[in-house]
C-alpha cells in the first residue's frame, strides 16, 4: 500500500514558516481537490493546526511528488520552507500519523485537542471526496490506536497535570483562589481545561474573549461566565487575576505597556498570566515586572514533568503501543494484496459446492427442512476446512513478501482463471470475514 506524508511541525519549522503554509478552513476542500488531482495521488488528507501542516496521501506507486503539490499549491518561495519539510512513506508514514493522533508528537505530549483536529481533517476530506477506502481504513485505525494509548497509558494525565500545575502556581501566588477572576483569551481546549481546574479550586468567575465572538459566547455559557468582545480585551483585562491566553496571534498580544496599564488600574494587585499559545501571546519581558507572573507552556510543562517522575516511562510505553500497532496495521495492509485471490478462491469453491448439491439433490427425494440445513452445513463445513490452510498460507506469505509466488501456485492448483472484480473496500471487509481468519482484536 502506498502511503506518503509530507509536512512541517513545531519541531522542524518556526512559526513564521508554519504560518505561511497555513490553509484556512474555508480553503481546505479546494486544497483537497487539487491534492487528489495531483499526478499519482489517489486519496488525500490535509491536517492543518497551529503546530503543524501535513499532507497525507495514498498514491498509486508510492512515489507521487508531494513536494510538487506544495510548490503548486502554496504561493510561497519553496526555498523558504523546503529545508523544514519532513517526508515519510509507508510504514513510517503510518507511524507518524499514529503518533500525531495519539498526541505523542504534540508540543504538550498527551494534550487531548489533536485527536479532535485529526478527526476534523478526516471529516473535511471525506466530505470533499478525497478519502476512500484506504485512508478511511488508516484513519479509523489511527483513532483506535489513539484511544488505546490514552486508556492504557497515563500520557493524557500529563496534559491534565499542566492544568493542575497552573492551579498550584496560582495558589503559590494568591494563596486561595476564592474570589479570583479568570480571563480566557482565546478559546482552546487546553485553556478550557485549565479554567475548569481553576474553577474547581474556587475561582469566582470566568471572562472569555475570542476573535470569533460566537465561540467566546459558547465557552462562557459553559462556565456561566461572561463573553467579552475581543476589541475590549485591554479595557477589561485588569478585572482578572489570572489570564489564560491561547490565541493564534503571530505576535505577543500582551506587552509591557499593557502590564503597566493593568497594574496601575489594579493598584498593583498581582496578575498571573498563563500563556499556552505558540507563538507566545505574552511578551516574556512582562515576567520582569513587579506583580506580574508569566508562565508559558514550556514552564508549565517543566513544572509538570517534575511532578510526574514516570512521565518518560509512560511516553515509552505509548511508543511501544504505537510500534505494535504499526506492525499490525502494516501486516494487515500486506494481506490486502492477496484479498482478490482469496475472494476468487472462495467463489470457485462456492460454485463447486453449489454445483455438487444441485447434482445430488434430485436423487435424495423430499427432505425435511432440518435435513436441508444439515446438507448446507456439511458442505459449508467441508469447503471452509479446505479453504482454511490456503488462506492462512496466502496471508502469511503476503506478510513475508513472497506473495506473487504463492499466489501463482495457488492459482495453478485450484485452476483459478479470472479474478473477481471487487472494489477494495469490500476486499478488506472480506479478509476479516474469511473463514477462521484471525480476528482483529477490538480495543
Amino acid at each position: 500500500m502506498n502511503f506518503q506524508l509530507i509536512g512541517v511541525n513545531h519541531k522542524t519549522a518556526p512559526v513564521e514558516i508554519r504560518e505561511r503554509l497555513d490553509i484556512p478552513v474555508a480553503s481546505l476542500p479546494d486544497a483537497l481537490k487539487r491534492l487528489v488531482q495531483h499526478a499519482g495521488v489517489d486519496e488525500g488528507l490535509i491536517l492543518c493546526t497551529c503546530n503543524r501542516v501535513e499532507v497525507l496521501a495514498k498514491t498509486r506507486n508510492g512515489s507521487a511528488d508531494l513536494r510538487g503539490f506544495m510548490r503548486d499549491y502554496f504561493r510561497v518561495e519553496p526555498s523558504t520552507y523546503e529545508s523544514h519539510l519532513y517526508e515519510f512513506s509507508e510504514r513510517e508514514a503510518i507511524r507518524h500519523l499514529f503518533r500525531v493522533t495519539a498526541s505523542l508528537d504534540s508540543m504538550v505530549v498527551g494534550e487531548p485537542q489533536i485527536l479532535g483536529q485529526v478527526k476534523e481533517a478526516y471529516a473535511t476530506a471525506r466530505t470533499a471526496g478525497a478519502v476512500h477506502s484506504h485512508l478511511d481504513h488508516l484513519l479509523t485505525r489511527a483513532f483506535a490506536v489513539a484511544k488505546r494509548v490514552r486508556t492504557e497509558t497515563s500520557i493524557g494525565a500529563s496534559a491534565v497535570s499542566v492544568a493542575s500545575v497552573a492551579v498550584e502556581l496560582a495558589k503559590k501566588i494568591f494563596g486561595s483562589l476564592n474570589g479570583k477572576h479568570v480571563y480566557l483569551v482565546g478559546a482552546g481546549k487546553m485553556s478550557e481545561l485549565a479554567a475548569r481546574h481553576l474553577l474547581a479550586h474556587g475561582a469566582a468567575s470566568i471572562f472569555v474573549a475570542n476573535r470569533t465572538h460566537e465561540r467566546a459566547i459558547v465557552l462562557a455559557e459553559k462556565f456561566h461566565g461572561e463573553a467579552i468582545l475581543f476589541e475590549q480585551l485591554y479595557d477589561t483585562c485588569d478585572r482578572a487575576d489570572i489570564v489564560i491566553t491561547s490565541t493564534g496571534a503571530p505576535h505577543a498580544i500582551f506587552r509591557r505597556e499593557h502590564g503597566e496599564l493593568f497594574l496601575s488600574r489594579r493598584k498593583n494587585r498581582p496578575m498571573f498570566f498563563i500563556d499556552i499559545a505558540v507563538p507566545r501571546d505574552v511578551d516574556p519581558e512582562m515576567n520582569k515586572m513587579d506583580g506580574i507572573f508569566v508562565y508559558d507552556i514550556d514552564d508549565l510543562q517543566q513544572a509538570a514533568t517534575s511532578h510526574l517522575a514516570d512521565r518518560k516511562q509512560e511516553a515509552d510505553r505509548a511508543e511501544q503501543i504505537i510500534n505494535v500497532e504499526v506492525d499490525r496495521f502494516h501486516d494487515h495492509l500486506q494481506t490486502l494484496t492477496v484479498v482478490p485471490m482469496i475472494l476468487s478462491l472462495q467463489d470457485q469453491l462456492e460454485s463447486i459446492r453449489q454445483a455438487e448439491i444441485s447434482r445430488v439433490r434430485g436423487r435424495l427425494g423430499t427432505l425435511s427442512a432440518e435435513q436441508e440445513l444439515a446438507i448446507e452445513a456439511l458442505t459449508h463445513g467441508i469447503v471452509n476446512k479446505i479453504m482454511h490452510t490456503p488462506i492462512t498460507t496466502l496471508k502469511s506469505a503476503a506478510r513475508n513478501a513472497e506473495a506473487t509466488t504463492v499466489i501463482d501456485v495457488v492459482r495453478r492448483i485450484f485452476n483459478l482463471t479470472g479474478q473477481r472484480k471487487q472494489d477494495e473496500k469490500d476486499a478488506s471487509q472480506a479478509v476479516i470475514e474469511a473463514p477462521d481468519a484471525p480476528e482483529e482484536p477490538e480495543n
Partner: protein
Amino acid sequence: MPILWLRVALGFYALGLLSALLALIRQSGLHRIALPAMSVGMVFHFVSLAEAVIPSGPLALTSMHNAESLLALLVMTAFMIVYFVYGTTSPGIVIFPLVFVLTFAAATHQQPFLFTSPVLGGWLIAHIALIFAGYAALFLSFTASVLYLIQERRLKSKKLSGVMSRLPALQQIDEIGYRSLLFGFPFMTLGLIAGMVVAQATFGHLDFLDPKILLSTLMWAVYMVMLFTRWNAGWRGRRAAYLATGAFVAALIAWSANYFSAIHKVVQS
C-alpha cells in the same frame, strides 16, 4: 533566679532553632520539635521576665539586657500570632535566629539598671513596652519582606522545588507584612509620644537635634510613608518589601543612636 530561667529558655530556643534548621534541610515541618521547644522556651522566658519585674518594679525593664529579653519575647509572640492566624512557620527562618541572639545576649550576665531615679516611671514603661511592640511588628514585617523577595524570585525564575517549597503564598506573605506594619504603627507612634513626654519631663525641653530623637522621628516618618504608599498608591510586592527593609534599617540606626545620644543612655559606655 531570673537569669537562670532565661538560660533555661535559651536552651529551649537553641533546641528549637537547631531542629528548625534540620527541618529546613530535610524539608519537613516544624511541628514535631521546633514549635513545642520554642513554646516551652517562651514560658520560661516569661517567668524570667516576671521574676525580674516583680521584685524591682517595672523599671527592671530599663536595663539593656532585660530590654533585649523583652524584645525577644515580643518578637516570639508576634511569630506565634502569625502562626495561629496564618498557619505558617516560615517567618521562623528569620525570627528564630534573632530571638536566639537577643536572648543569648540578655542571658550572658545581669546588668545594673541605669535609670536609678525615674521620672514619670509609668510613662517610661509605656514608652519601652510600646516601642518594643512596634519594633517586633516592624521586624516581623521585615521578615515577611525577606520571605516575599525569596518567594517572588522563586516564582519568577520558575524554580519551584527545593528547600523553600514550603513558603506560604506570595499574597499571604504580603498580607502578613502589611498587617504587621499596620498593627505596629500605633504602638510605635504612642511609644514615641511617651518617650517625648519622658524626655520633656526629665530635661525640661525636647532637643530635636539629639541623634536619638532625630533618628527616631526619621524612622517614624519612613514608617508612615511606607504605610501611606501601600494604602494610597497600592505599593506592594517588591517595592513594599524594599521599603519595609528600609524602615527596618532606619529602626536599627535609631536603636544604635543609644550609643551616642546624650539623653537616651541605656548602654553603659
